[in-house]
């Protein structure tokens, strides 16, 4: 628990003489990590902007608002626990992505897109 102290500051907690909660499940030393996605004023999609720690989902949302939208960036926020994300591994990069590297015909660049089709 000693790593939770904030020595000298207003947030400092005493390290002695406080109930240790022995026998109780020890609190986790850190809040879980959340990933933050923000949709900007002109954006169509939520974009990953960073991560933060919070005790629960709602707190993560408030923290995201305070940390990542304080310069008027966003109109919508998503937060998701980092451990809820399943990610591809760098080890499998080749089997995952190399096969699409030579299939240029999959790009929609071989025909004209009408001007009135937005967001392409």
């Amino acid at each position, binding site marked *: 628990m000693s790593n939770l102290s904030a020595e000298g500051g*207003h*947030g400092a907690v005493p390290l002695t003489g406080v109930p240790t909660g022995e026998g109780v499940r020890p609190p986790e030393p850190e809040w879980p990590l959340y990933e933050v996605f923000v949709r900007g004023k002109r954006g169509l999609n939520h974009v990953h902007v960073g991560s*933060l720690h919070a005790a629960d989902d709602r707190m993560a949302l*408030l923290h995201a*608002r305070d940390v990542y939208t304080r310069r008027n960036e966003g109109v919508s926020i998503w937060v998701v626990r980092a451990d809820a994300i399943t990610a591809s591994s760098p080890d499998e990069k080749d089997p995952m992505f190399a096969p699409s590297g030579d299939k240029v015909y999959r790009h929609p660049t071989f025909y004209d897109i009408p001007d009135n089709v937005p967001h392409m």
Partner: protein
Amino acid sequence: MNDHIHTTPEDEHDSAYSGLLVNDAHWAFGTDFEDPLAGVDTTIPQGVDAPTLAAYALMLGDDSLVMSHRISEWTSNAPDLEDDIALSNIALDLLGQARLLLARAAKADGSVVPVLPEGSPAPPEDALAFFRDAHQFRNVRFAEVVNGDFAEATVRVLLFSVWRLAVFERLRASRDHVLAAVAAKGVKELAYHRDYSARWFVTLARGTDESRRRLLAALDALWPLWPELFDTHEVEASAAAAGVGVDPASVREAAEGVLAQVLEAADVPRPEVARRAGVLGRTGRDGMHGEPLSRMLAEMQSVARAHPRGQW
């Protein structure tokens, strides 16, 4: 200033930051660095006594300024980075309100502004913030109390924002365009401060024995100054009668109702601590403050006072 910001239409949708500095119009009113009241009608409503309006704006402005400074003292000291930023944001919101309110006071009645040495570039709101002594401040005593632990910050922000939001909700209908605009802007900010602090209040109250103990101690410590928030000073009575201000007594019921909800959610009984008496019946609104305010101002004002002609 936009020349060095390059965004192409293609990548705008992929960046949360695109378009940020392209158009200044989306910034809220009151962010002009030269004139905080730019674009707002500052004429004094008909039938309103200018010194009363100035004195009233000064009261509200001093509340915001002193509270802002106390919360800003948490910067770099909060339990974790995220709450550090949250508290700093709250302090900045309040500082923004203070700037507008002090500017309003100065504009309504220039005689309230301290006279600075010839050649000082300090705008009137800065002169009011940095060149008055404690006895000239009209903030409620609640705002000036020395900081405690994080539970104390939670209770402080909660009580202040519950009260202040109730006042500002009514102040939006002020006949004074500036006060109405400040209130309309402030309501959104204070609603967030209240949400943030109420959540922490419930979390700490229902957390561990230690967090609950600290929360209850903080509530008991601040409670004696809670009733003073609803006292009606004669300036407030005059401002309310003239349709520019809000009589704090008129929002007591609304504020108590909101607070009761938070207390219930947190399973915390309403404290039974007597109110702190004034000195010869005089309280913060009369310029009667505790020694901690003098110390706070000494720190807050020292640089500005040492360099009254300083350019920042």
